[in-house]
């Protein structure tokens, strides 16, 4: 593809030009208007601090879409079924808290889908963990299931990136030779929400092409701490400073006029609250630092509200001794989801749940810029991890195919339905099985 006589006038109509050509010349981030589902008009959620440009902002960030309810900017969680249950996606500026399942088998998968979605959409990632090196976490991300069209485009992009375009001296539009070449490939797909194959690993090129920052606690904590003692554990203080640094340095909060960032920062924090972070709420009922985690969440939410970022946190709430802290943590987070797997419990052999691997409870959905929120009517949700895909479905009773109508089997089922997850926010107070 050779550039042909591009003048400034012609560049204004760049949607008529082959995207790769424009990209190569101007060093722009890849954006293919007309094919993406993202609307070009974006009423930016007020969560992002305003940059000083007046007038309508016609820029759309890849991998985001405005909510139908209040125009707020949403990002995908990596699971389209979960996006639908949360009212379209995760709002930028909010925290998604995942209460881990008992043996921490399925919550890392949700965590990784979130990060993988960020890579596919071209977002910047910040991965924080006290247990695993973030580089290793990224190696284990699931591969996206791209449909044929976007896969072809990706291959094309990789090819174009490798051709020696820099060797072609521009004869007509020679001024553009001086502009810097773009480094990134850009977002792989501009669709919102992708499916991931849990059995395959994400291709190495995608990870290398993405922009990510890692926070591995054992590395960071060795340096001396020069902050005033407040009741946060040192690990949390370091993490907050790291996050704030990235947000400020890369311009996600709009405060740095030189770095106008048009991208989203996805923050993932794994196993927050576990003893590996130095916190003792999982060990003792009335520890010395019982306010550490809640203070951390509050300051984190303050950071998120003033920047273009979204955060996912997995927390082993089943280990927290003091139940009041769980209630406080839930109140301080925006969206809260609980995973309950059947492994090791009596439900594993229960015929009611034979098709599923666990239950998923949507405990809280935030009301942002609105009096109401998009709660789904379906409260009994179950998930299963098939060979490739992680799916969330409405839990339904299997058909009763027994030959005799035995009273005992019906009673078992009734017992199990009684213990089905309570609704989001409002819980059935009575213990009586309500017969409808």
């Amino acid at each position, binding site marked *: 593809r050779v550039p042909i006589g591009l003048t400034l006038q012609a560049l204004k109509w760049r949607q008529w030009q082959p995207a790769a050509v424009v990209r190569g010349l101007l060093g722009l981030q890849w954006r293919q208007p007309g094919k993406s589902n993202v609307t070009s008009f974006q009423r930016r959620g*007020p*969560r992002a601090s305003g940059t000083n440009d007046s007038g309508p902002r016609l820029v759309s960030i890849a991998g985001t879409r405005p909510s139908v309810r*209040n125009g707020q900017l949403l990002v995908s969680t990596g699971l389209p079924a979960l996006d639908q249950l949360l009212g379209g996606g995760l709002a930028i500026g909010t925290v998604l808290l995942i209460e881990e399942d008992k043996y921490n088998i399925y919550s890392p998968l949700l965590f990784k889908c979130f990060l993988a979605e960020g890579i596919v959409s071209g977002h910047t990632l910040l991965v924080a963990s006290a247990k695993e090196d973030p580089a290793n976490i990224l190696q284990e991300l699931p591969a996206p299931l791209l449909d044929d069209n976007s896969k072809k485009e990706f291959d094309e992009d990789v090819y174009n990136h490798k051709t020696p375009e820099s060797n072609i001296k521009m004869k007509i539009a020679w001024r553009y030779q001086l502009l810097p070449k773009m480094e990134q490939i850009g977002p792989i797909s501009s669709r919102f929400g992708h499916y991931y194959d849990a059995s395959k690993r994400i291709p190495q090129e995608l990870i290398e092409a993405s922009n990510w920052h890692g926070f591995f606690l054992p590395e960071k904590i060795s340096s001396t701490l020069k902050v*005033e*003692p*407040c*009741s946060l554990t040192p690990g949390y203080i370091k993490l*907050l*400073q790291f996050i*704030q640094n990235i947000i400020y340095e890369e311009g996600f909060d709009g405060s740095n006029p030189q770095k106008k960032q048009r991208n989203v920062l996805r923050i993932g924090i794994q196993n927050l609250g576990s003893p590996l972070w130095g916190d003792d709420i999982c060990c003792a009922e009335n520890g010395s630092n019982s*306010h550490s985690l*809640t*203070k951390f969440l*509050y*300051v984190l*939410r*303050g*950071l998120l*509200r*003033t920047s273009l970022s979204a955060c996912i946190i997995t927390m082993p709430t089943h280990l927290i001794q003091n*139940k*009041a802290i*769980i*209630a*406080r943590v839930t*109140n*301080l987070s925006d969206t809260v989801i609980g995973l309950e797997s059947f492994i090791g419990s009596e439900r594993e052999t229960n015929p009611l749940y034979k098709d599923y691997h666990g239950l998923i409870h949507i405990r809280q959905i935030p*009301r*942002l*810029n*609105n*009096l*109401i929120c998009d*709660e789904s*009517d379906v*409260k009994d949700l179950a998930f299963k991890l098939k060979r490739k895909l992680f799916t969330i479905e409405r839990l339904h009773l299997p058909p009763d195919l027994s030959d005799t109508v035995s009273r005992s089997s019906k009673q078992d089922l009734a017992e199990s339905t009684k213990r089905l997850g*309570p*609704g*989001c*926010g*409002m*819980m*059935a*107070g*009575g213990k009586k099985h*309500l017969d409808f």
Partner: protein
Amino acid sequence: MFVELNNLLNTTPDRAEQGKLTLLCDAKTDGSFLVHHFLSFYLKANCKVCFVALFQSFSHYNIVGQKLGVNLTVARERGQLVFLEGLKSAVDVFFQTQEEPHPLQFLREANAENLKPLFEFVREALKPVDSGEARWTYPVLLVDDLSVLLSLGMGAVAVLDFIHYCRATVCWELKGNMVILVHDSGDVEDEENDILLNGVSHQSHLILRAEGLATGFCRDVHGQLRILWRRPLQPTAQRDQSLTYQYKIQDKSVSFFAKGMSPAVL
């Protein structure tokens, strides 16, 4: 401001009582619609409002306020509204050392004793300005919500002291009103929160309690509101008056109806 709620409470912005403490409490549901109601109510009543908003950002309250007919940005510029945005201030306090005492100074300290800087902020915001003409009718302090202070490391007693100081200044000295939101933890045994809730309930003149339905989630009835009028300082020979309504929240208003009389059921 929800007109139906005004009717239930038998008030209008013009003739609201002064010197009253209203407690908003929510159990198993979200009672923030009451905060938006009182914020727009007092702004329309031309009061000087000090809003300690610890839970959400300014733009959230502003956007909902616009649905209810008040513009917080304009009110702030006019001087009618003094807004303490908890989330933003927490980030400022945490990452930068402040020269003068900040209302949320306790975030930096390991064992903060009291909420004195916060009280000083409130007193400074609501003190009457001697400009000659009386621009605002009476001062109002709005707090959303108090349980956040417990999560941030303050003890229940320190928070109760803060409320006491505010009540003495705002309700008694300046003849203004106070509206406070406290979460009720319910089954979860949060001792500090229970102490706080009981302490404030005993001092309040009006308690609005938003509860989730006992039967669980319902699309058409979002919850139940219990209204309790109290007389905290007078010996009550008669019972305090109490009313219960169910409500459904819509986009710009909330509709109230008697128990079991939801339009969806009838």
